[in-house]
């Protein structure tokens, strides 16, 4: 190869660009062509591509430039892009980081991942096919994640005889989509990625086209000019305390700027101070701007930790415990309203629940569709309730402080990506009412400590039988109890719920709240629920004090439960008459560390019941006083 461009790129930070479009539209080939025509492919890499082209190539004897970017073995075997690849690309005028994203619908989450850090998009369309559903889907995600600028590359123009009419029609079609989404289309370009027409070199095949090449269009995109001034935001990342005489707050300025002497508030608590020093390894600074990683020293000793957000007193972020958001779901496990997830927003991490799924978005026409869950790659609008008030901005106002991810508490997988729309004010109008007669007082009258004994296990495992024995024994000893049973609750309080995963989550959420109220009334609450999901059992555990919850796992093999089939339900489930039946059509997640495990094959019900009674008596009687203050038993950190 000949030497790369001699002139250095300018000092601007690399422009982050995403390429998107449907599968086989030629994204990987376009990137390969960009690198090739800009003479950025080194000799040994070219030799490797020539070697690979003979083995995996899809273009006969020619170099298959897509193989420059599709690097995973499975990608080469299938000739598709599975995961995002980040490519570095430098012309004489500018440096770029290109995120090459998968076109397949099943990898939409990877596309959203790349879009979250991109500033501009190159949208590819196959000239023979025009604007497709996947073109619209990707454009929608670009707009959703805040990419404002798109270049439309109408690829494979050589295969439509370089027709100006075809090009103009597709460009007009796409401009309509872009206008609907609020995307600014910089320019539409007729391209052949395979032959290099209008990629880096102007094509003789399209004499009717007078606009820029793809490279020229990329070089001239101006994103900085569209970013309005944003107020100062500083998520505290790490408290820097080498010794008693230094206490600094390390973080990266998310937006705006701060100078020594500026007043700042902790958004959550409203505590105020001023910036005394801006410390860096290379010496103190007077000012820190967006993107600077610095350590702030404040003039006053105020309570400040990782997860807090510093802001100017006159431009504070929202602080609320409920908000509306757009959510892109990224997990194989569907999103279940009511289930507890961990939310990461800024540097804060806290438990949250999706309280309402308002609707799913149909990417085909951008319309709304009613939905009860979000499946992998679905996008929906939701209300989120957080375990404590949290500081944020709307995503439209600030991409750094309005973006969040949801994490599955069981697997630690990143399950969803969210963008805050607006806070829900109703949260501010509900305050906990303090009553004089509280849990402590009610329990004292009964001379016992309240608790929840939660029986979980398959249908027919023996939960109700054992719980009944436990309650009879406790009752005979003068203990005040209440028994909540799955079937009975579904006849009344929860008669509106079915057996889908979403309904099972809501079923347990309501039962948990009822059990918590009974604990407040001072009772020993025995709950018999299949409660198939670990996450919901964990959620109920978090509603009360740690010592007030006992998980009893009634462990009976499913074959035995099927044999017993006391209610004839397994017979129906196996015949396909009951969908979503736990153990047959729906999973059961065994407890990790229950307080009591009862292997019913090895132990008769009455001795199992005795063990449960022993646990309850050991916890509820000594001292006769309940532990923990009343009314404060919200989910604790270890839950």
């Amino acid at each position, binding site marked *: 190869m000949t030497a790369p461009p001699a002139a250095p790129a300018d000092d601007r930070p690399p422009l982050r660009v995403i390429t998107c479009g449907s599968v086989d539209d030629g994204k990987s080939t376009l990137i390969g062509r960009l690198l090739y025509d800009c003479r950025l492919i080194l000799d*040994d890499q070219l030799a490797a591509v020539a070697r690979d082209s003979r083995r995996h190539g899809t273009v006969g004897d020619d170099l298959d430039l897509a193989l420059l970017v599709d690097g*995973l073995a499975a990608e080469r075997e299938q000739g598709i892009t599975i995961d995002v*690849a980040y490519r570095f690309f430098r012309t004489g005028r500018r440096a770029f980081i290109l995120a090459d994203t998968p076109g397949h619908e099943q990898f939409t989450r990877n596309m*959203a991942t790349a879009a979250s*850090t991109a500033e501009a998009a190159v949208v590819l369309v196959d000239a023979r096919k025009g604007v497709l559903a996947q073109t619209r889907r990707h454009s929608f995600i670009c707009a959703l994640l805040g990419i404002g600028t798109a270049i439309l590359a109408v690829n494979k123009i050589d295969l439509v005889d370089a027709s100006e009419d075809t090009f103009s029609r597709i460009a007009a079609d796409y401009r309509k989509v872009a206008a609907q989404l609020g995307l600014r289309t910089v320019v539409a370009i007729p391209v052949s990625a395979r032959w290099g027409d209008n990629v880096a070199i102007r094509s003789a095949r399209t004499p009717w086209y007078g606009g820029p090449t793809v490279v020229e269009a990329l070089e001239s995109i101006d994103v900085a000019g569209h970013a309005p001034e944003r107020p100062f935001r500083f998520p505290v990342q790490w408290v820097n305390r080498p010794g008693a005489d230094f206490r*600094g707050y390390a973080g990266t300025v998310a937006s705006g700027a701060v100078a020594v002497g500026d007043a700042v508030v902790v958004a959550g608590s409203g505590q105020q101070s001023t910036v005394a020093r801006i410390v860096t390894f290379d010496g103190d600074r007077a000012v820190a701007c967006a993107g600077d990683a610095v350590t702030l020293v404040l003039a006053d000793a105020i309570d400040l930790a990782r997860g807090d957000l510093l802001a100017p007193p006159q431009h504070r972020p929202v602080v609320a415990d409920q908000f509306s958001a757009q959510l892109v779901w990224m997990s194989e496990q569907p999103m279940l309203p009511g289930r507890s997830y961990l939310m990461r927003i800024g540097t804060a991490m806290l438990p949250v629940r999706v309280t309402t799924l308002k609707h799913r978005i149909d990417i085909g026409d951008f319309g709304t569709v009613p939905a009860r869950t979000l499946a992998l790659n679905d996008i929906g609008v939701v209300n989120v309730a957080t375990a404590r008030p949290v500081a944020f901005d709307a995503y439209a106002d600030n991409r750094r402080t309005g973006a969040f991810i949801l994490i599955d508490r069981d697997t630690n997988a990143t399950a969803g990506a969210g963008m805050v729309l607006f806070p829900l004010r109703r949260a501010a109008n509900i305050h906990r009412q303090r009553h004089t007669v509280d849990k402590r007082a009610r329990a004292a009258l009964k001379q016992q400590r309240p608790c929840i004994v939660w029986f979980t296990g398959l249908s027919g495992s023996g939960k109700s039988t054992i719980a009944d024995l436990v309650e009879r024994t406790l009752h005979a000893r003068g203990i005040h109890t209440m028994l909540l049973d799955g079937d009975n609750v579904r006849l009344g309080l929860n008669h509106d719920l079915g057996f889908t995963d979403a309904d099972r989550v809501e079923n347990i959420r309501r039962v948990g709240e009822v059990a918590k109220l009974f604990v407040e009334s001072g009772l020993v609450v025995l709950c018999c629920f299949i409660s198939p999901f670990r996450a919901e059992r964990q959620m109920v555990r978090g509603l009360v004090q740690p010592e007030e919850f006992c998980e009893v796992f009634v462990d009976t093999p499913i074959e035995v439960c099927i044999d017993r089939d006391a209610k004839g339900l397994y017979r129906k489930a196996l015949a396909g008459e009951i969908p979503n039946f736990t153990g047959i059509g729906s999973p059961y997640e065994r407890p990790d560390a229950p307080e009591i495990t009862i292997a019913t094959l090895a132990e008769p019900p009455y001795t199992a019941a005795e063990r449960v009674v022993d646990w309850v008596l050991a916890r509820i009687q000594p001292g006769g006083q309940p532990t923990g203050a009343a009314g404060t038993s919200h989910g604790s950190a270890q839950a």
Partner: protein
Amino acid sequence: MREVVAQAANPVLLYSIGKDSTVMMHLARKAFFPTPPPFPFLHIATTWDFRDMIAYRDLLVQALGVELRVHTNAEGLERGISPIASDPGVHARVMITEALKQALDQWTFDAAFGGGRRDEEKSRAKERVFSFRSAQHAWDPRNQRPELWNLYNARVAAGESMRVFPLSNWTELDVWSYIAAEDIPVVPLYFASDRPVVARDGALILVDDDRLPVAAGEVRLRRVRFRTLGCYPLTAAIESAAETVDDIIAEMRAATTSERHGRLIDHDEAASMEIKKREGYF
């Protein structure tokens, strides 16, 4: 780096003595200043590192007062694994990948910084900044955590770990430009000098000690330097006159081969790096 320290229980920085990990060491000092980097540095020594690397490592560690841990796969040594006696792939697997896993397990590190950059190699271009590894240290490219905005999810269960690549979005040119801008000292092997080398299969191999078998009259003194460092019998030198960082940057702008061209263990097969990474290589 601060994210890792805030989220992980027991992080470590893998220090390979090369330019990338030396830049990382510099960044670590900056990120936590005035506190020293709150994690140890780990060197996986194969016993075939260039002598200059070890000398530089010990000088630097002493000068900066950082905590260095060194681990070698003793069992591999006993088996006689070496880059000369063994297949280069076997040597890399036993003395680098296996040794690394041993060290991570022995000290129960749950997050390890690496100097990997996405511009190095195709499978690296698909690497996350926070890269999840199973309890067996395995990387599954199909099952990576989506990495959105700057919200890094470093949560792992017992035994699982994170590999973290702070330089993901840097290029080789960025690294050298940063070394120039911050005036960071690097191993002298990166700069051209007259060195005794032998030509093997078109690659120039430095005769760093008498373990390398050479034929009479085979060794020649040539003006060479290294773009990348590793085990000396497996890392080829390039002929060069670049004696300063500025020379290197100028040379790189005109280069026609990639940095990893000089890594003999990368030429095995097309998906070589991906396979090594799946097994737990960095």
